[in-house]
């Protein structure tokens, strides 16, 4: 069985239809030539993807909350409806990349106001809504990949702890710009050494590829099966 795994940016590309990596990322997972290949993800990559999505969602809803806070007497519902219509019309008419998102948000707020007389809970509802919207990221990836396998370093497993420490020691001179990239790579290496199957890590970051290959080189001789792991830039994958 051949395995492949993805970095955070490719996961974003999978989820986001307008991302320049979307078609290629999706093809990596669902393409005809992927039959017989199995995908696993590592915990850090999934968490980073969720985190990126959450931060952007917080930012977008934060802007709405900021505007709502400016509306006088929201708590009493005074002219709230008129102010909300004005606020969302303005946002929607700006025709940014978030137009549909604002339409959806307006629909949710409108439904809430119709169903709930207690306007003082509007902010609480919006915070609860934001948390639940944030969780769709995982659902979307899970739906696309199907039977998602997520691997992580087991802190109660002495073998894992020993390997992590040895990898860090042997690759100490290879400095990654982003510490998360190194964490993802180490989680992938540990998984490959557990699975003992040929695996390709796809990344959209050329520098990550260079650094990751350098780490693998530094481990040769110390980890016999490390050659099972290959690193490829997404451009090296051709959509058939």
């Amino acid at each position, binding site marked *: 069985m051949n395995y492949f795994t993805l970095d955070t940016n490719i996961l*974003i590309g999978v*989820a*986001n*239809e*307008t*991302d320049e990596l979307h078609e290629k990322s999706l093809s990596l997972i669902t393409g005809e030539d992927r039959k017989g290949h199995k995908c696993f993800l590592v*915990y850090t990559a999934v*968490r*980073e993807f*969720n*985190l*990126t*999505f*959450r*931060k*952007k*969602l*917080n*930012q*977008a*809803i*934060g802007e709405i*909350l*900021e505007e709502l*806070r400016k509306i006088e007497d929201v*708590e009493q519902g005074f002219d709230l409806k008129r102010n909300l219509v004005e606020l969302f019309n303005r946002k929607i008419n700006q025709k940014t*990349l*978030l*137009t*549909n*998102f604002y*339409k*959806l948000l307006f629909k*949710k707020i409108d439904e809430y106001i119709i169903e709930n007389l207690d306007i*003082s*809970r509007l*902010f*609480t509802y919006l*915070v*609860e*809504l*934001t*948390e*639940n*919207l*944030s*969780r*769709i990221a*995982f*659902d*979307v990836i899970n739906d696309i990949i199907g039977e998602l396998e997520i691997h*992580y370093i*087991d*802190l*109660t497993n002495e073998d894992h702890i020993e390997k992590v420490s040895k990898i860090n020691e042997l690759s100490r001179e290879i400095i990654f710009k982003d510490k998360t990239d190194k964490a993802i790579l180490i989680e992938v290496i540990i998984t490959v050494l557990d699975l003992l199957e040929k695996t390709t890590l796809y990344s959209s970051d050329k520098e990550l590829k260079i650094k990751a290959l350098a780490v693998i080189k530094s481990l040769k001789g110390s980890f016999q099966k490390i050659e099972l792991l290959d690193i490829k830039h997404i451009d090296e994958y051709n959509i058939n």
Partner: protein
Amino acid sequence: MTSIEIERLNDHQDWIYDSTIILTKPIVSGRNRLKKMRRQSVVKVIDEILRISEEDQEELLDVLSDLVINKELTEIEIIKLKEEIEDKMNQIKKIGAKFSNLTNYFNSLDEATKKDLIKLSIDKALVYFNGLKEAVIKSVWDKEASIQNTMILGKTIHTITEYLSKSSKKIKTKKVKEDYLEENLTVALILILKIEAYRRGKITIDELEQTLAGLPLEPNRKYVLPEEYKGVLEVLNA
């Protein structure tokens, strides 16, 4: 200067303490019932725990909140943390032995009573955290309050209430074993201690968001339907 959302947490520190105690030692919630059952020796220990000084309360929360700093909530880590919290409580000077006694008393109860007390403890913690959620989020009306910090804190508390609700439903059907602190309840407890760590300035608001991002929770259909996902994903372009 203390931020507004931290001030709200400070105002409700006793709820955080009480929830930590009743979720780890559910027998504490059964004080009145045990009194009727004439279990005076247990009631005496519970009263001692409930009346410990503010300094001792602070020490307990300080020690327990240290355990959750920089911790990812993977399945393995959750199991590990559960054991560490239990061990740490039993080792705390002056009150550690009392906690250990309470665990022994609890284990000696019949299964139906144990279940009732766990359910009662979860429901009490739910009341506290629903109240805390409202108190924290309401502070966003204050124009000085940070919207992002209040929102992330509110989301974390909301997630705690969701885990507690799940746990409350599950406990009805579950056979109570000696190890009653099942996964949903443990995650709720760890998140409560993360909030305490944030209140004490031991972790940042970003660590709270990072913790939420690592939880495999499904969205509740009450808030979002699958056909609406596409519209939400637009934020990835922002």
